[in-house]
């Protein structure tokens, strides 16, 4: 079994080699990285065979730290869930690696880039394979770091650096909750290993803690709710859920392969994965689940509405990612973990595809990202076009694509989960329509119609090299095929305990399937009607519903709100605190004391007048005073 360790370790080795010798390897970096990742991909296939036979494998690595009764053993844990993620990560990562060869060709930071994505792959794998909460957290942060480094890959661009910092900080806010949740877990269970915790959890359902104890009040909350919510805060950050979704779109400043790998397929789904992984805990806290579901739904709708009007090709896809993540979180929140994970996997495929598609478009147009300066590319970039189309269909839930099956599963499971679920399902259907609309808006505006491309690029717009197109094709295949691999059946056993027999079927299921499909088609149709049939329309809509349009275009002003509410006040407070309190009051006191002492000395010095008889007087006076004191006391 030990070869399994290689799965994460190969990318790590690649990272080390590239990190240390990068300056020497330079353009040959892919020769190190790609094989490493491919191999671990193949190895994960081996694990698949292991696990699908029902055996879960656990490999202890080493004791990381021990202190008192805190003892952290790093280890790898393979079960169906992890293997599924494993495959997603390794496959997408491998493809992105290959894609990168073409995409980043000739960049100065070529080796560095490969080093980072290798590191990311390693961290993501470790995150997925974690067998305890702390390891999860450690690599949770590690992937955050990689995302930070990769977003800021082009460090000369201030925007990119700002985006990187923002991503990291927003995630930190989420991780703040995660960390506290972690501590609470240890505090309550005395261990951080998954399985002991899960085992205890069942026995100890209904345990409560009094939140107001410090203040003498009483407010008992189930510890599982506390744990669940705190950990979920981490998920909110990582998976760009409302209200911490703001970092993801900015993250698009990074190179496109990154957007595909980290900000679409893998890292951002870590939150969903975490919820699924910890389903035994979440199951014990309906409250936490409900919150998750609502947050998910909100994100889902918000993302979709914003995506409608964005003009930056990558941002459209980014917001669609936000929206799709909303779907998954909502599903998990409604207890439909399988469906959530299923959608996660398919989404991983087609969203990666879409991003890489964007990449090849951008590459072809010499880093032009504004869809208003595109159009008519379908003949110039056939492969990109067709793969992109497939991706969009999957995203729109077009029948018989992977997206169709997963989204359908998801909605059915949601519907069958109870009244809340049914309400949210309706929202889901609405969003499905919006999704279809904006994804085909993208298709039509970018690939159809007349070319609005900057003329002196227009001439030599051509399909990028094979390293770019090959991944597209593979992913396109996957975005169809993923629907037929029986993923839900594969995953179901993992959550057997969690979700009751959330079986699909029955009339409701077919109804929803029908409606969802209809919604998707409607969306596509609408997009066609608006952007192809009579192109004047969008502007008129915009003019008609000014407020809505602006809001959507400006992402509902969330960033501005945060700027006003948190960032600016903090900095101002810091500056004031420093000047007013630290320098003036505290340090002022210190120096004041010193100055006062000096002044006293200066005054006393004046008694030393140099007049002999003053001195004599002083002596006498002193004597008298002392006698007086003596007589008094």
């Amino acid at each position, binding site marked *: 079994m030990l070869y399994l360790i290689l799965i994460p370790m190969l990318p790590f080795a690649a990272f080390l080699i590239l990190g240390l010798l990068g300056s020497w390897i330079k353009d040959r970096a892919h020769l190190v990285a790609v094989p490493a990742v491919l191999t671990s991909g193949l190895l994960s296939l081996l694990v698949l065979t292991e696990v699908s036979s029902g055996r879960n494998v656990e490999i202890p690595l080493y*004791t*990381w*730290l*021990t*202190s*008192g*009764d*805190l003892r952290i053993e790093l280890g790898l844990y393979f079960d169906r869930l992890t293997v599924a993620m494993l495959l997603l990560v390794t496959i997408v990562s491998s493809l992105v690696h290959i894609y990168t060869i073409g995409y980043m060709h000739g960049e100065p930071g070529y080796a560095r880039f490969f080093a980072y994505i290798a590191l990311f792959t390693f961290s993501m794998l470790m995150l997925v394979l974690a067998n305890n909460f*702390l390891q999860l*957290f*450690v*690599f949770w*942060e*590690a992937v955050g*770091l990689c995302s*930070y480094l990769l977003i*800021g890959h082009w*460090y*000369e661009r*201030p925007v*990119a*650096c*700002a985006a*990187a*910092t923002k991503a*990291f*900080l927003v995630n*930190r*806010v989420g991780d*703040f909750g995660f*960390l*506290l949740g972690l*501590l*609470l877990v*240890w*505090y309550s269970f*005395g261990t951080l290993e998954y399985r002991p915790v899960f085992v205890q959890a069942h026995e*100890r359902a209904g*345990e*409560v*803690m*009094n939140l*107001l*104890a*410090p*203040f003498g009040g009483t407010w*008992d909350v189930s*510890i599982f709710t506390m744990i669940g919510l705190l950990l979920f805060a981490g998920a909110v950050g990582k998976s760009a859920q409302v209200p911490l979704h703001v970092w993801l779109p900015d993250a698009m400043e990074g190179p496109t392969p990154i957007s595909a790998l980290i900000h679409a397929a893998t890292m951002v789904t870590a939150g969903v994965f975490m919820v699924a992984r910890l389903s035994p805990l979440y199951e014990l806290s309906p409250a936490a689940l409900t919150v998750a579901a609502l947050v998910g739904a909100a994100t889902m709708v918000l993302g979709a509405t914003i995506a409608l009007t964005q003009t930056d090709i990558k941002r459209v896809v980014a917001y669609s990612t936000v929206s799709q993540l909303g779907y998954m979180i909502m599903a998990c929140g409604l207890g439909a973990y399988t469906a959530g994970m299923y959608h996660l996997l398919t989404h991983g495929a087609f969203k990666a595809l879409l991003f890489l598609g964007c990449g090849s478009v951008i590459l072809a147009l010499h880093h032009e990202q504004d869809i208003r300066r595109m159009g008519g590319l379908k003949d110039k970039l056939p492969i990109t076009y067709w793969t992109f189309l497939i991706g969009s269909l999957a995203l729109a839930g077009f029948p018989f694509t992977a997206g169709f099956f997963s989204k359908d599963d998801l909605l059915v499971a949601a519907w069958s989960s109870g009244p809340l679920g049914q309400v949210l399902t309706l929202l889901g259907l609405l969003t499905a329509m919006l999704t279809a609309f904006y994804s085909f808006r993208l298709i039509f505006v970018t690939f159809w119609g007349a070319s609005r491309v900057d003329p002196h690029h227009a001439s030599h717009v051509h399909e990028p090299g094979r390293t770019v197109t090959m991944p597209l094709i593979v992913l396109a295949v996957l975005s169809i095929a993923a629907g037929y691999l029986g993923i839900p059946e594969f995953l179901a056993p993992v959550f057997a305990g969690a979700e009751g027999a959330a079986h699909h079927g029955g009339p409701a299921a077919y109804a929803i399937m029908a409606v969802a499909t209809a919604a998707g088609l409607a969306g596509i149709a609408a997009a066609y009607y608006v952007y192809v049939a009579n192109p004047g329309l969008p502007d008129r809509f915009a003019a008609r519903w000014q407020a809505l349009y602006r809001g959507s275009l400006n992402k509902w002003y969330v960033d501005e709100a945060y700027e006003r509410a948190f960032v600016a006040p*903090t*900095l101002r*407070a*810091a500056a004031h*605190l*420093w*000047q007013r309190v*630290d320098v003036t009051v*505290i*340090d002022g006191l*210190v120096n004041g004391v*010193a100055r006062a002492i000096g002044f006293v000395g200066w005054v006393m010095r004046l008694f030393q007048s140099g007049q002999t008889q003053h001195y004599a007087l002083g002596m006498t006076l002193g004597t008298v005073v002392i006698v007086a004191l003596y007589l008094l006391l």
Partner: protein
Amino acid sequence: MTDIPWLTILIFLPVGGAVAVALVKESSVRWTALLCTGLVFLASLPVWFGFDHASGAMQFTETAAWIPSPPIHYRLGVDGISLPLVLMTVFLMPLCVLGSWRAVDTRVRGFMASLLIVEAATIGVFTALDFVLFYVFWEAVLIPMYLLIGVWGGPNRLYAAIKFFLYTLAGSVLLLIAILVLYVQGGQTFDILALSRTPLSPTLQAWLFLAFFAAFAVKVPMWPFHTWLPDAHVEAPTAGSVVLASVLLKMGAYGFLRLSLPLLPDASYRFANVMIALSLIAIVYGAYMALAQADLKKLIAYSSVSHMGFVTLGIFTFTTQGIEGAVLQMVNHGITTGALFLCVGAIYERTHSRMIADNTGLAGPMPRYATVLVIFALSSLGLPGTNSFVGEFLVLVGTFLWSKIATAVAALGVILAAAYLLWMVQRVAFGPAKNGGHLSDLSLREMLVMSPLVVAVFWIGFVPNTLLAPMHESVARLLAARSGVDGPNAPSPQLATSVRRPTPAASPAGALPSMSARESRP
């Protein structure tokens, strides 16, 4: 092995080195200093490897009569708490010498001599087991440090130096009186170990604690006694800042651990809430201050205030994790902050400005430098995989057992740390290069300085047990001593060994949300 007086060697080798530096010819001063510090580091290895992890007692102890009456002895020894600090000190010193190889070009002799004296004195502080001896070393640090800041410092150095000197001195003189009172009240001895066995009345303990506090809190420095730190750091030469941040600040925290807790257990426990409150203020406040700084050194100085807040926080949680985390955090802070100061020094040598605004976009011209800087910044903001994470995590674990709210506040500090450090990195390392390509990247010497630190950062990050293992027994002993005392609110013995959620009786009122579920559990 132990019959060789390694600790004495550790202390007096630098002294000899200082003398040698004063005598050798100008050209070879640097090499002599480097050689000496290197030898000291080598001499520390036997202590490190010869240290018996299984025992929490003092090891490598040496005793010699010094002054007959009152009985003052030359008594040395290390345990799991002092060992890491000694090691850190001797590990950093050669780097300091290397780091100021070029930076210091005037009166190198005196500079190196002062540096070596500081090393000797700090090692003495960390190993002294006699209270007067401790005090002697404690104060002996001041003068050379004063010279380091005042002679080789920046434009405003006189002010900074005298401020540092007087402030810390004013704090520590009270310690002297406390020592004498302890001697008079506590069985006519200066032996720290013996004193820790003599019970004292709570009131007396309280007074003594305050006296100790004056000395240690200024040194740490705890809020609101921190204002000397930014001035001193800004003006001090690079090596001075490194020594100051990495070693001197630790003396204060070490004082709390070695003296306040064992000698005044009840008082320490009674004041724990206050101390924790101050630490929390320091954590958040320091971070806020750091956000407002435009001067790199000031920024790092304030970040030190914040980080040392974690140390004191951990100490006063009276939990295994808290204290071990605190000790580890001391070492981490020593390595990371020292490294950051070295980074600032390196850039100052090139652009002659410490202002963030003057040093932007260095990643272009100086990729190696940027890499190193980012690594240390990340370590400083406690990214998992780096040293600081382990320390802070342990401290948080300990704190969580003491009070959840406190933990939340402390964790807030972690966010802010990320804020000011990443913002700093964003401005300094990234963005368009301001003063173009003419900046030379880190030289081989500078890489020699940085790489050991980088290794240390990740080593502690991935295998913290190398440092934690020696601590366990000593910390256990420390806490056992605490719980051994039948003070007004002595915790249950099991609290001492490992605080698995202390009973409300053991905890200051309201510090802990009690978990009603606890009772139901066996």
